[in-house]
């Protein structure tokens, strides 16, 4: 498998990247980790005229927690960095649980969270996780920077709302207002398999009470599904088994899966429900152990 011909540029500054994208007039693609783009180009499902490699940009490989508690992930921060991150394992359980489940260990060396968000694969894990966390991306274009909430950023299967000459420089998880809890579960039949279905749950708690909840779903719709109704029933309440059941049911309702060789629509709904229930139940078990 061999890609079609394209022009390749690897500029050193974001401004140059944006200029190149602008000149590319919509026929250009940004190359970060390349773990989705290059296979697509090899299969010739993608044939951009210009590839703008951003790997030479300095200072974008960070992930950090700011003093206010917000988490920032730069455009060149690799999945592997997040997987090994002590910061995430202590501060952000949903991301920490998702990171090792992205693709496979070798792909994680190169692939990036921001690239995964931009690729907007409905079966991509990070979009669900960042959506559940109420995150946003920071996009930069010729007119400067703007922020876009992730659930608005992904506009359809393999589509985002970026202008053709804009680039995402970082993804941000806003500061939590309470104790964070949550998790990410998905069914994959083998390491590196696309999710049959997955559920991301992000909670902020004050004692037993949920201050904020986010639930988002992987692989059960044309794009990542933000299960807002499901999250809403948790807000302001304690995680009793009734509340958990209600949220899990509503997550299943929010899912819009299609039947395919990975499973029937009904089964995928069932998985979504099961995963939400299991994550929330696990949170209550942790609470009970702590108490």
């Amino acid at each position: 498998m061999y890609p079609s011909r394209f022009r390749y540029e690897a500029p050193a500054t974001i401004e140059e990247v944006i200029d190149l994208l602008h000149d590319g007039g919509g026929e250009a693609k940004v190359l970060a980790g390349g773990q989705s783009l290059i296979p697509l180009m090899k299969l010739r499902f993608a044939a951009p005229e210009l590839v703008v490699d951003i790997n030479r940009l300095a200072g974008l490989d960070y992930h950090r927690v700011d003093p206010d508690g917000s988490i920032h992930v730069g455009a060149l921060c690799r999945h592997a960095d997040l997987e090994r991150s002590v910061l995430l394992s202590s501060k952000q359980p949903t991301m920490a649980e998702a990171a090792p489940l992205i693709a496979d260990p070798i792909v994680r060396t190169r692939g990036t969270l921001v690239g995964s968000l931009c690729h907007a694969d409905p079966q991509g894990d990070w979009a669900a996780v960042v959506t559940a966390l109420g995150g946003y991306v920071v996009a930069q274009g010729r007119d400067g920077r703007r922020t876009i909430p992730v659930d608005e950023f992904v506009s359809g299967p393999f589509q985002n709302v970026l202008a053709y000459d804009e680039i995402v420089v970082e993804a941000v998880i806003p500061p939590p207002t309470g104790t964070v809890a949550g998790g990410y579960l998905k069914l994959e039949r083998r390491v590196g398999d696309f999710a049959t279905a997955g559920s991301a749950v992000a909670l902020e708690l004050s004692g037993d009470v949920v201050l904020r909840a986010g639930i988002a779903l992987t692989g059960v719709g044309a794009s990542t599904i933000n299960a807002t109704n499901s999250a809403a029933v948790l807000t302001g309440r304690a995680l009793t088994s009734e509340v958990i059941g209600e949220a899990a049911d509503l997550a299943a309702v929010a899912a819009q899966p299609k039947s395919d060789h990975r499973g029937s629509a009904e089964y995928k709904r069932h998985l979504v429900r099961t995963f939400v229930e299991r994550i929330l139940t696990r949170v209550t078990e942790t609470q009970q152990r702590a108490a």
Partner: protein
Amino acid sequence: MTQALDEIKIGGMGASRRRVEDNRFIRGRGNYIDDIVLPGMLHMEILRSPMAHARIRSIDTSKAWDIPGVRLVLTGEMMAARNLAWMPTLSYDTQAVLATDKVRFQGQEVACVIADDPYIAKDGCDAIVVDYEPLPVIVNPTQALATDAPVIRDDKVNQHDNVAFDWEVGDKEGTDRAFEQAHLVSKIKLHYPRSHPSPLECCGSIADFDRATSKLTVYMTSQAPHIVRAAVAMVAELPEHMIRIVSPDLGGGFGNKVPIYPGYVMSILASILTERPVKWIEDRSGNLISTGFGRDVYLDGELALREDGKILAVRMKTTSDHGAFFADAQPSKFKIGLMHSAFACYDIPYAHLSARGVYTTKAPGGVAYRCSFRVTEAMFFQERMVQAAADDLGMDQAEFRRINFVRDDDFPHRTPYGFLTDSGQYAKCLDVGLEAIGYAEFLKEKEEARKRGRLLGIGISTMTEPLGAGNSREYDILGIKMFDSAELRVHMTGKAILRTGAMNQGQGHQTTWAQIVAHELGLPADDITVEEGDTDTAPFGMGTYASRSTPVAGAAVSMVSRKVKAKARKLAAHLLEVSEEDIEWELGRFYVRSARDRGVSIQECAMAAYSNMPDGLEPGLEANAYYDPPNLTWPFGCYIATVEVDPVTGVWDVLRVVAVDDCGVRINPMIVEGQIMGGLTEAYAMANMQFITFDAEGNCVGSNFMDYLIPSAWETPGYELHEVVTPCPHHPIGAKGVGECATVGGPAAFVNAVIDALKGTGVRNIDMPLLPDRVYEALTQKHDVSGAPPVRTDN
């Protein structure tokens, strides 16, 4: 030298000798097809059909020719002009090399482009415009056999339907009578899904036609280079001595590299036309969608049972889906391979099998995927039928098998379908397995777990299978009898070179063949070079598949060593100045019977063969041997798996796997165990995740490794291996085949375990692969989930 040799120290039989071939592989110095570069070499890429069934209205290649670097574009029309548009399959059918009239499966070869580099060749393929007229698609036997079904093979003069063959074997009347007397008839419908061997290296070839000498050299990924040479001679009408086929290191085969593929033929013609070497390296989707698949067989199975659990008769009816061309690689006499080897380990008086093969608009193949010609299906069906029967009778799984086994003192034994088995200790193998897994304790644990809502299950699979075709009376490929060969030349200093007609693809022939010679002659294994795969130098052989190398080529290695030893004995008599009758042999040395100290080493005999031979004795120390085995070998395997099923999601995890293999005498135990673990993993893969299926439009689902899942180290369970040794009575060193045993016997162990975990829910069957959603469906709907893996849709 006066001491007899320590056989293990010289790397003889029974030594877990470290592999010779590893020295190059661990350094990245293997020599696989894509590693070979010839001067002036061009590169070929194939354009494949996106449609499953369509008439070709036109092919416009003009834009491809315009691309700088494109040297040649071939279409079916151009092949036809040279009488090469069609080629014979290994099952006496024909297969299109490049489509002329219509395409008959998605991925069929439509054109190819030869260019300076593969990137440009691919650009060329993209520039070809093909106008297709879609035709109705047929993706399963039911559609194929419908009365109004379009005839897929309208290229064949007398073909008016989609039936590829009807075939039967066994005693129909006797079987019918036995069923009438049955206390209980246990019935089950099963499907063995289409699977693909997908060795990690895809197929490929480099054809190099030398106009000056008229010699054609083809480097190719073939498990059977001599068969290819014969076929090329016949198809391309080239003289056989002007064809040299070379199989370099193969990155796995598993049956996928037995057939002759259109790509090979195209590269040959392209080299003849361009007068330059032409390399074709298949990509993974090409490999998965067009080359030889395995299985895709439906079964209606019935067992006639006596009240006490004795099996009175077997009735099997199979319907197999062969795709667009009947291209099974199998002995020509047996249309559904050795399906009738089923139930060989059980003592059953009557059996009947009727088999129907059909054409569909799917890729051709039906290769023996780590299998002796449909034996994998046979043993899977057998062990699923056995479990269902035991459950129907309310009998214990192990006990039901035990009372039906052929007894140790009952050999040779005629199987219900007519094979002759010759050795085994079936009950002992089962006992070793049950002991290892802790059968009784697990059954208790299972009951306890059940009370707490956990679903545990245990699955047993026991089978003997026929490995090592032929004998030549019954087995042939395209009329060529199935024997094998070896050639041994001992140099003057006692070093040697051995060549065989087999073809290694990971089994370690370079290592083990030398061990057999070491065993026979006492030459240290390290002193013996082993070569295979070059038809200009290797003796004629049928290649490596169907676990036949040790049973046939390995036997030839023994026999050729014995011939060399016989001549060495004459040389020893000369050196020791006694008559041959007064000489005795111990490993590595002849000595005078009456004076043990007086002896000569095999190396001294070798030197004498070139420097001090007696009058009248032909110089040199070498021989060749062709070995036609008197029978197949019959290894036995007992595989036991325990699993836990998640009652909520249907996901199942393997807890333990115990394998007890009786493959006779083990030449290199380390390598044998490696084969068994590899085989178990393919069994697990097929039971769990690995399958190819087709949607209603004939699109192949499983056309790349994103959808065609093969397990990684993470999912793959650990294995506990045990052995029982019953030497093969007719093999010169008592060995039996082993390479595929675990793949053949393994799948039923996993499936039986999951079904066992669901016992009591009314579920009798879930067909492979046991995808979580299929297990979930069975659990929640409390019904069987059978048939080909569906591409589910919402309408």
